[in-house]
């Protein structure tokens, strides 16, 4: 399709993307429409798992999901609907911290999106070889990232805002404006951070650093609050810090700009307008400052992708069985997987508060130590799911392995062994530390880890597809059922382990329910056909 107004393009542009005097650029609106179309299709593909004939079913499913989401939203925010300005300092701190957490999560998503634009290439070659003014095109790209991050956040916040508006009045709809404002500012920050990282540490390290940043940035805030709560108040609750006198003591006065988002959420129109305006100005500044550099950055990223990384110098080939060869290969690939590094780091970060809590409780034998078990079991289940996808489905040389002289069952067994050994290596130190304080709890935790990891691995095995490791980001779209089943089984085993320590008879019920979920998943899995 030739854009109207761009049909008579002639081709002369310098390396900054500026066209010659006689060149007519494709209109900005056309690029915006093109961006919108791509975003819509990508979103639809994500919702339908790439199946072209199912958009209606996906929309109906989404509506049902949104309706169901109103129930947990009611439970979480329903009691806060009567909150009205002016709030006391503690409430302002809690509300502002919640908004900051949402902002941090959006920032994390935006960093991931920006990195993807630089490294995934997609249509960058086409765009950069076209006579279009590159700063214009990249301004649209930046705006698209901002819109997609904000759009997703608006969608997710809708049940919560609905509940607040239903219980507390229409003034709560101002919260949508706050979500939009923080979404735009998060996108602006993400672009600035990524491009500055490029300049400072180069494309090779930026990719990994940005992935790690994206993974830990959202969780980091919660974890920092939890660590502060454990160290100061001996509890895992982050609210202990936020509602403390110490926090109120160092918080600024009620008229401070820091409280704008909280005031805006409560329906303060002036604060909302100021917040939206400053976010738009910030995004505009970032677009003006960084759009011209976007092209250079993308070219540098492409050049990096084309260059090779030097591995370790030659050493002797190792012997052993065929399964050993497979396991060695899997471990080597896992060690070199940037996604896995960031994901593992995030899981380990989540384990820091329980670990500190464990250390603090070492002397007093607190009953609250039981809380550590579900956190560990849940983390093990989630990490095992990711590892299992990478080893079982993410096989880059599927033909080679399939034509090797060993039965498929032995290939699968070797891959499962790698997952379980990795989980063991990550969680064994924590279980060992727990065994020193509470031996019975350590046994239960180890059992929970084993069940959680085994269940997630089994689900990935039943729903395995042939894919490239680089497609990991999209693994959830290949089967929503597997994704939900994996999450529910991890939650189920975490709950069962906690109940086994607190109310043993209830653990039997919880365990049976989790087993039922897994059995139902197996029944619905494609490998059963």
């Amino acid at each position: 399709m030739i854009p109207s107004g761009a049909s008579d393009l002639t081709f002369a542009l310098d390396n900054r993307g500026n066209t010659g005097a006689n060149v007519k650029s494709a209109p900005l609106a056309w690029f915006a429409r093109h961006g919108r179309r791509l975003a819509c299709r990508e979103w639809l593909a994500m919702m339908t798992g790439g199946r072209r004939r199912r958009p209606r079913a996906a929309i109906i499913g989404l509506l049902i999901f949104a309706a169901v989401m109103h129930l947990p939203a009611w439970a979480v925010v329903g009691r806060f609907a009567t909150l009205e300005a002016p709030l006391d300092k503690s409430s302002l701190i809690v509300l502002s911290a919640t908004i900051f957490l949402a902002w941090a999560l959006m920032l994390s998503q935006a960093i991931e999106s920006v990195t993807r634009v630089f490294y995934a290439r997609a249509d960058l070659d086409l765009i950069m070889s076209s006579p279009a003014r590159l700063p214009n095109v990249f301004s649209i790209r930046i705006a698209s990232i901002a819109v997609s991050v904000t759009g997703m956040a608006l969608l997710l916040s809708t049940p919560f805002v609905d509940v607040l508006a239903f219980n507390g009045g229409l003034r709560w709809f101002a919260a949508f404006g706050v979500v939009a404002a923080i979404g735009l500012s998060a996108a602006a920050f993400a672009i600035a951070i990524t491009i500055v990282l490029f300049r400072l540490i180069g494309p090779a390290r930026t990719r990994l650093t940005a992935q790690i940043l994206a993974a830990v940035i959202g969780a980091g805030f919660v974890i920092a609050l939890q660590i502060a709560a454990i160290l100061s108040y001996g509890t895992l609750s982050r609210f202990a810090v936020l509602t403390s006198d110490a926090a109120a003591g160092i918080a600024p006065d009620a008229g401070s700009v820091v409280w704008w988002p909280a005031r805006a959420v409560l329906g303060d129109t002036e604060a909302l307008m100021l917040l939206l305006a400053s976010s738009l100005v910030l995004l505009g500044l970032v677009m003006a400052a960084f759009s011209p550099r976007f092209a250079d950055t993308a070219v540098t990223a492409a050049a990096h992708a084309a260059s090779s990384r030097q591995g370790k110098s030659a050493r002797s080939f190792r012997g052993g069985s065929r399964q050993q060869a497979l396991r060695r290969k899997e471990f080597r690939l896992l060690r070199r997987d940037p996604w896995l590094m960031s994901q593992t780091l995030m899981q380990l970060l989540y384990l820091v508060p329980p670990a500190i809590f464990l250390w603090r409780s070492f002397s007093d034998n607190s009953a609250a130590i039981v809380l550590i078990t579900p956190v560990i079991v849940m983390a093990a289940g989630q990490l095992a799911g990711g590892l299992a996808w990478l080893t079982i489905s993410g096989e880059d040389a599927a033909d080679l392995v399939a034509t090797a002289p060993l039965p498929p069952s032995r290939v699968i067994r070797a891959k499962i062994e790698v997952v379980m050994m990795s989980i063991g290596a990550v969680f064994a130190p924590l279980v060992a530390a727990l065994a020193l304080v509470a031996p019975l709890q350590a046994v239960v935790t180890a059992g929970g880890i084993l069940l959680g990891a085994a269940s997630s691995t089994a689900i990935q095995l039943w729903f395995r597809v042939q894919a490239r490791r680089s497609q990991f980001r999209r693994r959830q779209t290949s089967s929503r059922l597997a994704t939900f089943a994996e999450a529910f089984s991890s939650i189920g085993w975490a709950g069962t382990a906690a109940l086994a320590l607190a109310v043993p008879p209830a653990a039997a019920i919880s365990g049976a329910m989790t087993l039922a979920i897994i059995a139902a998943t197996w029944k619905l899995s494609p490998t059963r056909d």
Partner: protein
Amino acid sequence: MNGETSALRLRGLTKRFDRLAVDALDLTVRGREFYALVGPNGAGKTTTLRMVAGLLRPDAGGVDIFGIDALKDPVAAKQMMAWVSDEPMIYDKLTPLEYLEFVAGLWGIEPKASQASAYELLASLGLEPHLNERCEGFSKGMRQKVALAGALVHDPRLIILDEPLTGLDALSARHVKGLLGDRVRAGCTVIMTTHILEVAERMADRIGVIAAGRLVAEGTLAELRQQNGHTDTSLEDLFIALVDTKAAA
């Protein structure tokens, strides 16, 4: 056959997807032979070879590799065989040496022998300067060479290649052709599909022409010419004549 066990024997091999892809195909490739399988797009060449390599299960028929029923005893059959596809499937995060170490391990080759063979193969394919670089930055040609080295490192008796010269520059293509020729002279059997008819004409001992899942002609170039009543024509002309006749039929 001169009483010699054939390297590959297909008996009534059939595969259907939404249409019949391979139609009761009978084919025999002798040991120590370079056999080229040519045919138009969608003729069933790749499907046939994928069934031979054990990557697809046939709907009917049989596959014998050096007398071993590959459907009954796939592990024994695979031990003697190597498969190279047109889309090189290698690991981005491994170096060529690490890749070859992995392949040799999968085929259970003794490390000392496989290491020497790996160095020799990679050097002969011009990959010596890249032995310890991860494959993620390699061009398609370099990736194809790594995949080919992987196929040869376990010293297979039967090598099956699907369009192995795709994406290779002239020098690399010559390296690969030389390497395959050497293997045949050393007693190996090579079966290759190609769209480059000049390669089939120059390298193959026998050529099979496949169309709509059936073998429509087979023999040496001279035999093909004789069968079609042309004494001095190129394989390209013969191929077009054969495929056109089949399409008309």
